[in-house]
């Protein structure tokens, strides 16, 4: 069993969001709190809480969106200082990294000294952190969470250390739910069960959790004939900038998975090696206790390149040293792939040709230029669609299923202006129509003037008031919507906000 030092930066998502730890702030994903500051915790905000519950406990809560890319970019600074001390840093996720303890422990005389040294350099960089040492990265990560700043679990003691932890630390909510209902509340209870029974009842994933609970590695390492190169690499001539490399990474990741899949293997740790045109090469290890799928792997390559682009290394002539000439993905820790069955024909999200075309356009115009529409919640027609850049994850958007009282009724307008356009609305005497604070219309609209073109109104309805996000003064909007049909056969969705009339959409 390998000894591992885990370095954990608490509340990393909020730190990356730029929140002050002394003010209550949370990071939210899918309407639930994923991280909160110490100040927020003091007033009773917890991870997993609903946003509304959190806001009820604390009125002046700062809310941030979950931005994994930003978290990975900032974490790169932590990785850089740790890497200067000990080699072979594994990133488990932004906010948590692991280092094999053997080398540093010898160099710094003891594991405790090594962990303290690592913690000190990261704290000197200005990040709050804790370090723990134990057998395996799962236990080490938990050891790092022991207050005040992590502990060293002596070799062989890991199972005893893990025993009192609740099963929820396995980060498998479904499994944990069943276990708790069966009366198995701690890792110790789980570890006490016979392994074959756990496998029979809970399948491969349960067996994996059982191994973790016993202080073993999640998957036994796979033995394979030496000399077999499973890595996937691609060379670029001429050298490429970071953006196109990410697209290459995706196909490389697919290739890697094919290599492994054909041998019945999977990998839990991947080494990403980037070689630049000035002959340098940078490597980073990425670990995932589940299995790294190819989009997840490509995403990690993107984090890595983004971070390097944002903070050029010392002594390098420029971002990425003038271009990437080679990208290599090597499975670093290979395990037997058990209990993961793809559907018979696979499940492809996008066909290869479309993927390629979207990739080429992203190279031409930038990552955000190619998007996919997703229906989300909202009242106005523009708010009900979110455009997600191609290749980004489609979750983390507001659910469309939730009721939105005051929503503009169907049918939806076919032309929705990205920016509402100013319009003049006058009554039959040519006076501007106004809407009072009590939603009284001064006179029926008779004509609208759009970009100098007068259009006679044949029918109208409204006002439909909407008072949006009134709880937050910075983004609160108070507006009223009107539907107006004009004599040219078109109809308009107008909105009046702060005395100004705007065209939100056109029913054309």
């Amino acid at each position, binding site marked *: 069993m390998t000894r591992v030092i885990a370095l954990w930066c608490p509340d990393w998502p909020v730190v990356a969001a730029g929140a002050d730890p002394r003010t209550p702030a949370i990071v939210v994903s899918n309407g639930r709190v994923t991280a909160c500051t110490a100040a927020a915790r003091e007033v009773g905000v917890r991870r997993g809480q609903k946003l509304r519950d959190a806001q009820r406990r604390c009125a002046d809560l700062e809310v941030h969106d979950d931005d994994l890319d930003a978290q990975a970019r900032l974490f790169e600074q932590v990785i850089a200082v740790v890497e200067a001390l000990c080699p072979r840093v594994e990133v488990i996720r932004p906010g948590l990294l692991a280092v094999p303890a053997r080398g540093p422990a010898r160099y710094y005389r003891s594991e405790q000294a090594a962990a303290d040294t690592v913690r000190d350099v990261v704290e000197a960089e200005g990040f709050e952190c804790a370090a723990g040492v134990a057998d395996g990265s799962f236990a080490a990560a938990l050891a790092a969470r022991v207050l005040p700043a992590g502990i060293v679990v002596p070799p062989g003691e890991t199972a005893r250390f893990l025993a009192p932890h609740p099963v929820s630390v396995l980060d498998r909510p479904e499994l944990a739910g069943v276990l708790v209902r069966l009366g198995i509340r701690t890792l110790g209870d789980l570890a006490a069960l016979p392994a074959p029974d756990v496998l029979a009842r809970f399948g491969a994933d349960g067996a994996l959790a059982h191994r973790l609970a016993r202080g073993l590695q999640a998957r036994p390492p796979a033995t394979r004939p030496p000399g077999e190169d499973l890595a996937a690499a691609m060379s670029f001539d001429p050298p490429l900038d970071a953006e196109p490399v990410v697209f290459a990474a995706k196909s490389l990741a697919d290739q890697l998975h094919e290599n492994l899949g054909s041998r019945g293997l999977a990998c839990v740790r991947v080494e990403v090696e980037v070689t630049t045109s000035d002959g340098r090469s940078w490597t980073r290890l990425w670990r995932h206790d589940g299995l790294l799928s190819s989009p997840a792997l490509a995403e990690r390559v993107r984090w890595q390149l983004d971070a390097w682009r944002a903070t050029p290394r010392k002594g390098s002539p420029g971002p990425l040293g003038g271009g990437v000439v080679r990208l290599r993905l090597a499975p670093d820790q290979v395990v037997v792939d058990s209990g993961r069955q793809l559907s018979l*024909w696979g499940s*492809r999200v*996008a*066909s290869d*040709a*479309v993927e*390629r*075309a*979207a990739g*080429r*356009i992203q190279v*031409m*115009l930038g990552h955000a*230029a*190619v*998007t*996919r*529409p*997703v*229906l989300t919640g909202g009242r106005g*027609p523009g708010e*009900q*669609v979110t*455009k997600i850049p*191609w290749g980004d994850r489609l979750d983390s958007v507001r659910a469309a299923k939730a009721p939105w009282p005051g929503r503009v*009724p*169907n*049918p*939806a*307008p*076919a*032309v*929705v*202006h*990205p920016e509402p356009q100013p319009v003049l609305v006058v009554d039959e005497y040519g006076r501007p129509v106004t809407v009072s604070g009590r939603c009284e*219309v001064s006179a*029926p609209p008779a004509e609208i003037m759009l970009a100098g073109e007068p259009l006679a109104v*044949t*029918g*109208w*309805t409204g006002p439909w008031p909407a008072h949006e996000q009134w709880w937050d003064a910075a983004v609160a909007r108070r507006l009223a919507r009107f*539907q*107006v*049909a004009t004599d040219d*056969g*078109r*109809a308009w969705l107008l909105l009046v906000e702060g005395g100004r009339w705007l065209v939100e*959409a*056109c*029913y*054309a």
Partner: protein
Amino acid sequence: MAMRSSVGVQDYSGSPLVAGPIPVLPALQGLLPGGLPRGQVLTVDAAGALPLALVAGAVPAGVPTVDLWCAVVGLPESGMLAAAGMGANLDRLVLVDRPGERWADVVATLLSAAGLVLVQPPGPPPAGITRRLTALARQHGAALVVVGHWEGARLRLQVTSSLWTGLEHGHGHLQGRRVKVVADGRGAGGRPRSAWLWLPGPDGSVAGADLGVVESLEAAG
């Protein structure tokens, strides 16, 4: 058309071996019998419900077997909610809202991958670009739908009459729009075809609104 069915014979990778015309909504069958011919250029007069209806027909929701994608270029204002209401599967859409000067390159790239490319050029396209993109559409068997004018387009769809219903003075809400759509051009087989449609109807979908009565009244009047 030799192949009427929109679903070609599929090999196991999911790409159609025999590609038929691109399907259209049932309500548009009268205007475009059999569907949108592949490899040709079609123009519509303005952005709005009509081009979205073509998109909805090409990538209908709930038909996962057809490996067809649809790209929308240079139309940041197109109402995706309206497209979904007409029955489009938004998962099959690729949007390039602001291609800028490189719109022709973007369209050229997309023609190789998407079955239907809907584009609004920023201005009248130069003859060289028109020829190049028309040739690419033919080569890849994709349908290019252009909002605006296009030299050498096979077919032109126009909304010639439009009336919204459901709105009174101060009450009600927009219910549906009855339009007359006319298809003409070389691809129409000599004679312009026309159809009365609910574009959209009260539930957002497209349906026939065959009011022969209205037609004959117009002729008489």
